[in-house]
């Protein structure tokens, strides 16, 4: 294999990595807000799925992809509301609520989709106007032709993605700024670490937890919309395919921090890209890395990190605990 070909493969892999990590990153940031405020969210998967369905369905019916995105966000936020009512207002088990949401999403998307479009739970393929298209960043062509290595990198990896991709990557610094540089963020994190002290200071724990859960709803809504209108062109049953759980793994891997979340999602996106592009990897003709190992690696890494064998991941201290106001 010559160098030019290797370079091409390198570019293709990086490009695919970015495409595949967007959903993970959106769901991971969603989990970040929620868990930083003390609400464990294993319903990320369900929120992605319900949003994917409604964004595809509404995009198809109206022909306007942005209306589809809004519909996806609305559906995901409705799930967040259910999550909030059960685990904040009624102090139910947050994990069980998440499991319930995942069941509901798997069922509702197919039941409603089947009755609506009569295509066995799928939506029809989205026509041109009803899905997102690649945008070319300025100077992409000029860079490709004039600057050798970096130019191609800019034109084929950084440029040429769909709008939600850029929005998503901008959300990382925004999240960092909100959580670590604003009063809102400080209080939100405090609610997840020591709710009683925040309560003593006269800040409503309930309000902040609802805010966090709703932000998670918006982000998962974007994630689902990306799946159905950008990564694919339409909804297919179970199309979230466990990405909500990988995002959860990435969140732990990132130790509940925004910049680390970006790194973790890119890493897990890269692993997915590798398993798609190069199923079985032959190492110097000595042995073969099976595709299943690459696929399982995100989960294995997460278990290792969580167990503290390599740098301990410590979750927010009040995570999973309903807050009961003292009387």
């Amino acid at each position, binding site marked *: 294999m010559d160098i030019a070909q290797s370079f091409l493969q390198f570019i293709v892999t990086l490009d695919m990595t970015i495409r595949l990590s967007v959903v993970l990153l959106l769901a991971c940031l969603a989990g970040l807000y929620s868990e930083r405020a003390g609400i464990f969210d294993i319903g990320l998967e369900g929120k992605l799925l319900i949003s994917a369905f409604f964004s595809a369905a509404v995009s198809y019916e109206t022909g306007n992809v942005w209306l589809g995105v809004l519909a996806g966000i609305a559906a995901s936020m409705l799930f967040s509301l259910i999550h909030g009512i059960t685990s904040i207002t009624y102090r139910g088990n947050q994990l069980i609520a998440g*499991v319930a949401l995942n*069941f*509901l999403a798997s069922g509702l998307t197919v*039941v*409603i989709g089947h009755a609506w479009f009569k295509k*066995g739970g799928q939506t029809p393929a989205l026509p041109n106007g009803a899905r997102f298209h690649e945008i070319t960043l300025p100077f992409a062509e000029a860079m490709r032709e004039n600057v050798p290595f970096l130019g191609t990198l800019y034109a084929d990896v950084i440029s040429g993605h769909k709008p939600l991709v850029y929005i998503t990557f901008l959300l990382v610094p925004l999240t960092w700024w909100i959580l670590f540089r604003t009063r809102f963020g400080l209080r939100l994190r405090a609610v997840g670490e020591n709710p009683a002290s925040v309560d003593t200071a006269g800040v409503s724990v309930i309000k902040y937890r609802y805010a966090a859960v709703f932000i998670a709803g918006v982000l998962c809504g974007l994630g689902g919309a990306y799946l159905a209108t950008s990564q694919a062109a339409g909804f297919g049953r179970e199309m979230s395919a*466990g990405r909500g759980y990988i995002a959860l793994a990435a969140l732990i891997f990132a130790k509940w921090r925004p910049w680390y979340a970006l790194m973790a999602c890119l890493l897990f996106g890269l692993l997915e890209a590798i398993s798609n592009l190069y199923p079985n990897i032959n190492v110097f003709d000595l042995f073969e890395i099976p595709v*299943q190992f690459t696929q*399982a690696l995100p989960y294995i890494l997460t278990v290792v990190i969580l167990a503290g064998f390599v740098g301990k991941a410590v979750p927010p201290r009040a995570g999973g605990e309903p807050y009961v106001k003292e009387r």
Partner: protein
Amino acid sequence: MDKIPRWADVVLIPLISLTLALTASGLVVLAIGENPFQAVWVIIKGALGTASNIGYTLYYATNYMFTGLAVAVAFHARMFNIGGEGQAAISGVGVAVVLLAFDWPHWSIALPFAILGGGLFGAMWAAIPAYLQAKRDSHIVITTIMFNYIAAAVMGFLLNGILKSPETQNAETLPFSAGTHLPTLHDMLAVVGIPFSKHAPANISLFLALLCAFLVWFLLWRTRLGYAIRAFGHSPGAAKYAGISAVKITIIAMMISGALAGMLAINAVMGQQERLIKEFVEGAGFVGIAVALMGRNHPIGIIIAALLFGMLAQGGFELLWDMPNISKEVVLVIQGMIILFTGALDYMVRGPVERLFVRARGGAV
């Protein structure tokens, strides 16, 4: 002091939750323009209408009894085992390895070894997250979720590699030898002269499930270990003070839980498929959560809930013929609603019921 009588806790509250869950699901059916009562009728008919339908219902119910018991044992030790799916899958490997290793002369000899193999594999797959929880403080919910995916990868690796049958293109093992064929309900009922469907997959594992339910009851409420598990579940701090080792209880309870989930492989792999395929668990590990919640973590409740969920699973298939506009995934909606109302929204139902009883007694609220 208990605020409500025991019967209200065991019967009334689950019934109210179930009613709410079914009402919510009914509204979904109504929203897509179909008659929910007709759908319920189709599901009941589909679950119990013919001997063959009953046989399928009992087959699914057997799976759910195993996974429901698995979740319940972990719940009693205050752990949420969401990894039944992976534990059952790995147990399938254990069962297949045992059954493929020898040319078994008779099922009655093969069955105990298959139970041992499946149980051991399931227990070991649950023991790792348990160890990490007990010793390294890793949250067991996260670890068991991760282990579900790792199990799927292991299955894919084995079934496309060393365990793959050379005779087909599919990722599956060779069929087990004829000597491992478990008696079906048809075979067993024929002995006592009752005719039963030949095609239904219900088999002797149903009785294994009932036996497991009894053993779980005996373990939890009649043995020292069971007492320790429940004490630890009620109050880990107090249990530790009483000299109960948290590490030991966590690992033992999870191993029992994993082995119970693994018994699903006896029903599905040895009893029905008679070879190992990749997707035999079919979500039963997750349904076990709903079963345990609805059955109030008690073996009798779990048997009843498993039968109900078995009816739903089988009856859902019949919707396809009688009400083609409703897809069978409506069963997932019902399961989700049941988990939501009996599990997560317990307090919403319990609060008003408690107030009602206190008021009826004339006490202060």
